[in-house]
């Protein structure tokens, strides 16, 4: 039993597979949902999946650069959320209750 538990210690591969599953869930969310806010949340899911795989690979390769990259990805994600929500707010103010099909022409 103890040998089984020792064999079942999570390796980097486990984390990478989990990140792949999370990325797939985010992909399906972006493709399926119509609400722009929820689509944005699904993009955050995909960003987090990539961050998780960066950190797992940083541990496996013994390279701190992976964690540095995650740091920059977080900063860019914060800026991206601010700009994206600004765009969504300005669109929704003009036409309340719009979903992404209504604004697919990219013009007012």
């Amino acid at each position, binding site marked *: 039993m103890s040998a089984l538990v020792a064999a079942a210690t999570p390796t980097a591969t486990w984390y990478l597979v989990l990140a792949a599953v*999370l990325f797939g869930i985010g*992909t399906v969310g972006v493709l399926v949902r119509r609400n722009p806010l929820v689509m944005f949340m699904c993009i955050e899911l995909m960003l987090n999946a990539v961050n998780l795989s960066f950190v797992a690979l940083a541990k496996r390769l013994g390279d*701190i650069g992976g964690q*540095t990259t995650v740091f920059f990805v977080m*900063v860019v994600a914060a800026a991206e959320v601010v700009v994206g929500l600004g765009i969504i707010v300005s669109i*929704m103010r003009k036409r309340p209750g719009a979903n992404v099909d209504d604004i697919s022409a990219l013009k007012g």
Partner: protein
Amino acid sequence: MELVVFVLAAAMILVGGLGVVLRSHPVHAALSLILTLFGVAVMFVAQEAHFLAAVQVIVYAGAIVVLFLFVIMLLGVDRTEDIKTEPFKVQRPLAIIVGLGVIGLVTAAVVASRDVVATRGSGIAEPAMTDPDSNIRQLSRSVFGDYVVAFEVTSVLLVVAVVGTVLLTRKVKSTSKESQ
């Protein structure tokens, strides 16, 4: 012990991720997103990325999700939307096929390459009781040493994002008065 942490955090991440996609209420989706982000923070701690785990909780689960909830309340879209009906019949099965394909391909690549790379860098410092902030020191050496130019460019990016958002969401009263 490590296995228990992994299983619990993975359950948090997957339940939260499915909740974001499947819950029809945007506020519930945002709360599911918090669950996922906390699970990822636990994973960061398990992978010796302690500073990033703190940043994950503060920036993502704190600032970003609060911003999401704020916008949901501001726009008044905090009502259940109808996700049962689908205007394009083929879209949902196609999306699920694409998602499963992404998962399958990436998993195959990960599993196939699991023995290829051994070690590249000089190692991640494992924080011990005698030196608890070694991860922060190592990360800051990297950010302010090797990647200092990228760090400075990031500050430009943040300024651009702030100015752009102010321009985007500004009320256009003054310009409409000028045009009259």
